[in-house]
């Protein structure tokens, strides 16, 4: 493997977005195919990061910064992929957000980052997301997974409202709905007709993979 790809991988593992961005540019200039950079450098780098987290060497901030580095590199590689009419392999497309009336961000963002790092295309709509916006985005991105976060007992009902709206829009069949947040539970998921509940970001990745059988 070329020095550049080695360095790019190191930048991802070290969680250095600026470096990763610069090294991705260098890789393209050196004539390395973007898919090669992804398959031989970024993906294995994220795998190592995941392993380091599992064994306790790495912590959440390390994980998040590695994901940021990967994202920074992809910003450079993506246009070149498009130009070549190539596509990186993605495991699925996820739309995620915190439901209307609820401004809690951190758990939802963790899940979004972990899914992105695991190879999903993630559209993070942020917090206090109106029902309609979830529906629009599911439609626009052709998402196969929808993640709904709620931290309050008073806002968790809006998870149900989104699912109802999906049904009305005729989109429910095409998308797996995963819910999360402190007051949510597997029972609540069953009550409101979600496909699954995930307790935390790691579990969310496993749950989504299982639902999509990837």
């Amino acid at each position, binding site marked *: 493997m070329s020095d550049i790809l080695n360095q790019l991988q190191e930048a991802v593992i070290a969680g250095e977005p600026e470096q990763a961005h610069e090294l991705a540019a260098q890789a393209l200039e050196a004539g390395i195919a973007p898919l090669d950079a992804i398959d031989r450098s970024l993906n294995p780098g994220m795998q190592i990061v995941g392993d380091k987290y599992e064994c*306790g060497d790495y*912590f*959440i*901030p390390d994980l998040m910064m590695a994901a940021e580095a990967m994202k920074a590199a992809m910003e450079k590689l993506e246009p070149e992929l498009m130009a070549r009419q190539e596509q990186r392999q993605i495991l699925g497309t996820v739309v995620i957000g915190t439901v209307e009336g609820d*401004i*809690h*961000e*951190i*758990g939802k963002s*963790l899940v979004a980052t972990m899914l992105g790092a695991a190879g999903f295309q993630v559209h993070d709509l942020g917090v206090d997301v109106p029902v309609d916006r979830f529906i629009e985005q599911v439609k626009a991105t052709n998402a196969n997974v929808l993640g709904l976060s709620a931290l*309050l*007992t*008073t806002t*968790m*009902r809006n998870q149900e409202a989104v699912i109802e709206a999906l049904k009305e829009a005729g989109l429910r069949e095409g998308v797996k709905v995963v819910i999360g947040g*402190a*007051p949510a539970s597997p029972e609540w998921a069953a009550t409101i007709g979600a496909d699954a509940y995930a307790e*935390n*970001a790691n579990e969310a990745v496993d749950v989504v993979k299982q639902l999509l059988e990837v």
Partner: protein
Amino acid sequence: MRPHLHFLSRGTIERVISEAYDLLIDPGVRVHSERALRLLAEHGADVDLEAQVARIPAALARGAVETAPSSFYLYDATGAPTVHYGGDDVQFDPGSAAIEVLDYDKTESRAPVTADLVRFIKLADGLDALDAVATSLVCADVPQEIADLYRLYLVLLYTGKPVVTGAFAVETWHTMKDLLATVVGSAETLAEKPRAVFDVCPSPPLLWSKITCENLMDCAQYGIPAELVSMPLTGATGPATLLGAVVQHAAENLSGVTIHQLVKPGSPIVWGGSPAAFDMRTGTPPMGAIETMMIDCAYAEVGKYLRLPTHAYLGMSDSKVVDAQCGLESGSGALLGALTGINMISGPGMLDFESCFSLEKLIIDAEIVGMAKRLVAGIDERETPLGLDIIRQVGHAGNFLTTRHTRRWFREELFIPSGVVDRDFRRNWEAKGSLDAAARAHNRVEEVIAAYEPKPLPDEIAQELEKITLQAAQAAGMDSLPELGD
């Protein structure tokens, strides 16, 4: 002499406050309430209504700190001032708003219902260590739209102690205010002799959501005490450094004091919080982390410097069951908070990051509270000479048990725990069933609840409370209130 714990020098506290004032100007505070934004603008803040951001000049915030009272009382059902927010007085109330309850001898928690809340109130009412009762359980057998006010309704029915509570919506706050006004006689009496304090929680970083901001302003308007609960999570929703988190906490609370005092100068407000040292392995907000407790104590020092009453969520555990971790974390938090002189420490009974309540834990925590209060009472010079006379008097014979001196002092010098704290001989402990602390606590839960003395309200008041609550329930689609049992 009373022991005091300090983490911050005067110079550090002043830098914290100075940086907090700077944050109020740049980047300012996000405020999702037009009413608050307009009020701030009227008083000289630079307000962007579109972006919902207020840049608050330091002079405005300083003025608010000046008008906020440095102390006030909460009153019990007899009208006696029993909780003093101010100075270094230390009081405790149970942790609040659990959405789970843990039954004895179970490892799985479940959603609480009316009967659980009633048992909790009877228990908290009977434990002298607890100075106030919180609306600690969110009942799952009523619509969520009335879950906040329903808790208060039951608390007012079953205890005469002062109450620590909070609203989950803008409208329900008013219903809760009506319940409180009913029980004390009128809204005017409620303002004169507040029975309850409302927690209001800004969202980190630097955001007042619509609900909390309206609650904050309504508290000010009606003169009902508000307790600011800023909760930065280190390295997640606030800086990773402990002092950085204290700065953010100070900025959020100062913005709260400002909005509150602009509505009605002189309304009582508390410098409280519930920060946590974010767990970098699991992504949880551990209430039992030692750094969580350090931030709590440090921000309380900042509040004291500003001469405001203080509060913290301490004495909680992240454990899922009543075990050694519970004792470790709850004990540490309660002691550190007491040594800091925090006026109201909320937490006893709470497990699992402030989400699960255990009656057995409340019993054990009441012993911790007893010890914490004893600790801060300190070591006094009871007499002069300190020990010379009595030691000479007993002499080498060495039996102090039969002296008047011992009988004169031991009750004052010792905190005498209930049987939940085991100090027995092993043989006796075995004879009583070799019970561990959780099992002993369980027995005492039943004893205290059995000894509960009803606090009957005058019929017309009880009926009015029920009427208000029933109306709210019916508006939320519930025809009749759950049976209260007993």
